[in-house]
């Protein structure tokens, strides 16, 4: 296996983690990772130097943005159930809460936050992945954190109701 493919293979666990948090759906997440790898393999000749991992995060982030755009063009199917976390306590409730809190974020803010907090990328790397200035990354981060805090502190914004 070539060095390039080795570095792709090595990046998969982290990509799956990022994709899972980004989509909160195991199957969609792995679909995204698969599409990311296929694109990377096709574009191997375009990749000369630099960090393969950042490049893969970039592809995956873009693919997910495209996916959401496609979804936005047709009626959403995901129902939002209310009150199903009521009986939960402890770590399970925490996990459910953080999932929901992440769901409530705008996509670019969610991606910025996850790349920093979960994937450990620097602000500069996130700026490259998202194709924006560092200042934009920082304001996305700030907004994401403020909203998560409001959500987790209990002043939950009314969920967007989807019919």
């Amino acid at each position: 296996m070539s060095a390039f493919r080795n570095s792709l293979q090595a990046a998969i666990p982290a990509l799956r983690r990022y994709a899972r948090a980004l989509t909160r759906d195991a199957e969609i997440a792995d679909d995204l990772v698969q599409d990311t790898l296929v694109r990377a393999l096709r574009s191997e000749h375009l990749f000369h130097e630099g960090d393969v991992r950042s490049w893969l995060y970039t592809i995956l982030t873009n693919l997910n943005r495209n996916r959401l755009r496609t979804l936005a063009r047709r009626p959403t199917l995901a129902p939002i159930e209310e009150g199903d976390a009521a009986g939960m306590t402890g770590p399970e409730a925490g996990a459910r809460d953080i999932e929901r809190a992440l769901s409530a974020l705008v996509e670019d803010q969610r991606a910025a936050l996850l790349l920093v907090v979960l994937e450990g990328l620097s602000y500069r790397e996130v700026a490259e992945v998202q194709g924006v200035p560092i200042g934009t990354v920082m304001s996305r981060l700030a907004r994401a954190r403020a909203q998560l805090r409001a959500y987790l502190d209990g002043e939950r914004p009314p969920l967007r109701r989807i019919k």
Partner: protein
Amino acid sequence: MVHRDAPILEAELHAYVDGELPADRRAAVRTWLTSHADDAARVAAWQAQADLINARYAGVAQEPVPPRLDVDRLSRVDRRWSLLAVAAVVAAFVLGGVAGWFGRETWAGGMSGMRVFTTDAIDAHKLYVVEVRHPVEVAGTEQAHLVQWLSKRLGYDVRAPDLGPIGLKLIGGRLLPGASGAGAALLMYEGPSGERFTIYCARSGAPETALRYQVAGSVAAFYWVDDNKGYVVSGPADRDRLLKVAQSVYDQETAPSDKNRG
């Protein structure tokens, strides 16, 4: 000289939490937080969020990687598709007669698109019906899962028509890259003597049509466009038999009821 108590900006608090500050600024922020409870609470909340996110998702990286994400495997599949693309170009020349045939149909915009569409479908048919061990990705025995998965990936309801009454059994299906990059579903059926038929379905902007027939060597296809979806039913070049299959698929796919939905 910077005043010791120069206010710390929010940006610096984030950079502090994320380890992006140089050592001297880090110390200054730490000092600031001891006397500014609001900011200290914010920083603590952000750190708690990071902990929750990691507690929830960090474990995913420890899970075994599913085989479908194996890089070697993916590159093999992808190479096969590159070869197929070459084959499709060759086939486009071979099927020049078909192009002329299409030309008669005065399909202004839809013509070339539909030609690519049917060529893709017939190529996929030829490629996969000869597979003995891996003709499909998901077996027909898991029909509910197959239909659900394809529907989810393609963004519309994919159905697996019941062709039992005309002697065909569902072997299964797979997801393919469609001509427009939107993806396509390929469902495969098998008859009593091992002859195989496929249904290729993908989004198509071409105008609606009734059944049309096309021959490409030993393989033939009926295709049509309905409700922005194109269907190609391919099989051995036996017009009457294929028409029966296509008719049955057509009737079920365009049926208004949900009775065939997986």
